[in-house]
């Protein structure tokens, strides 16, 4: 098993506020669109600005496409979370696919050969605030990202 993430341990991950939790099984491209739509709507309800709504939809897209392309089956979970009185949106992608052999490599820019420059996990990591990845070769992969809503209601401008 191999993991990459921020210094916080797993247990410190934010608490889910139950009512706002959705999940989509990813089997077709239509499921990707559904997951994006749900994510975008939840982001809007939480008060994220339009660009951040689009970034969240893009993030969901990337994670869901990885499931669609590389795993037999997998699920996207989208949840509202809170920590230290801040509100955020958490996206979890969990699959039972082949896993990622070399996580350090997968997190390097330019590793993904498929989609050119903007593709893959490094781009997702840069758009989100928290990033956690766990993968067991032969068993599956789990990616968890969180975007926190800042006071102005948008995201960072970077």
């Amino acid at each position: 098993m191999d993991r990459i993430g921020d210094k916080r341990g797993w247990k410190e991950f934010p608490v889910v506020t139950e009512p706002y939790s959705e999940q989509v099984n990813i089997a077709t491209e239509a499921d990707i669109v559904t997951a994006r739509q749900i994510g975008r709507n939840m982001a809007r309800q939480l008060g994220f600005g339009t660009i951040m709504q689009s970034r969240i939809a893009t993030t969901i897209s990337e994670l869901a496409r990885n499931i669609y392309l590389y795993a037999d089956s997998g699920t996207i979970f989208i949840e509202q979370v809170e920590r230290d009185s801040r509100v955020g949106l958490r996206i979890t992608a969990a699959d039972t696919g082949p896993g990622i052999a070399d996580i350090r490599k997968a997190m390097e820019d330019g590793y993904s050969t498929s989609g050119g420059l903007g593709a893959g996990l490094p781009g997702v990591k840069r758009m989100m605030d928290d990033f956690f990845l766990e993968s067991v070769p032969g068993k599956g992969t789990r990616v968890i990202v969180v975007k926190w809503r800042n006071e102005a209601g948008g995201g960072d401008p970077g």
Partner: protein
Amino acid sequence: MTDYDLEEQYARLLRDYREGKGEAQLYGAQQLGKQLLARNVSPEELADLHGRALERLGPVPEFVRESFQILTEIMIEYGNAYRSIHSWRSRHQQLESEIAVASAMQQALLPQRLPSCPGVDVGLVSVPAKQMSGDYYDFVCHDSHRFSLAIADITGKGIPAAMCMSMLKYAIDGLGEMELGPADILRHLNNVVERNLDPSMFVTMVYGRYDAAVHRFCYATAGHEPGFLYRRAEDRFYDLEGRGAALGIAPGSTYEEREVALEPGDCLILLTDGVTERKVGRAYFQREELVSYLQGEVGAPAQEMANRLYRRLLLLSQFELPDDYTMIILRRT
């Protein structure tokens, strides 16, 4: 795909979105973005493409049309940034491929086999934090029952530390035939390092010789992280003490030799500070905690014990390895 086709595809996407305002079209837009990037369409060309595609959808007011001149102009600056990616990437990859070669050279300098003497079981794990290691270790077999070992940590990591490591290797190799004792070897190496290295760099080292006929380990220490001696009879760990300045600190430093005798089941654990220096959550790992981990694995064959400790410690720090990691275990069987 011609420019015309691209414009048509783009206009169709806009039209579909207008009619359905659907997430499906937004998903299509993202995929188109990937395609455009893969085709090296620059941001300024994209802005221009957008302006042209709009014309196919309906009557575009003059002020909107003109505004794309401005957007394109601004996007050229973004295009310059975008075009620089290729240059950064190729420069970086050039260096990375050099480092891969240098790293293979460095691996070739390290001993390929562990010593095998009757009655003593040796284990080793050495993992660099980056591609090139600034930790050093060596084993030299003198005869059927005696071998020497070195474990060292060079200040810093990466390329400079690796260059220094290759120096250490040849300096030690040059001493090979003289059969000096550990203290004399450190004294000699101190002079080499002191003479040839930048004053800001230094090396910590333990150099020792094991005699499997009498199971005595004679060693000297140059400012190195203390190892551990495990006494089976008491089931207890002791620090493997030693005094002496790190190599390269001052000319003419001298070193003292110490000796320990191993009883059956006793272990010697030598390590670099990359083993102990790790963050666990927000706190630093303590040497006492390491002892509890050692305790958990002692008794296994030396190599297995070393492997297990490495895995457990890596898990503890969430697979981050901030410093080069080296551990050598000697276990009297």
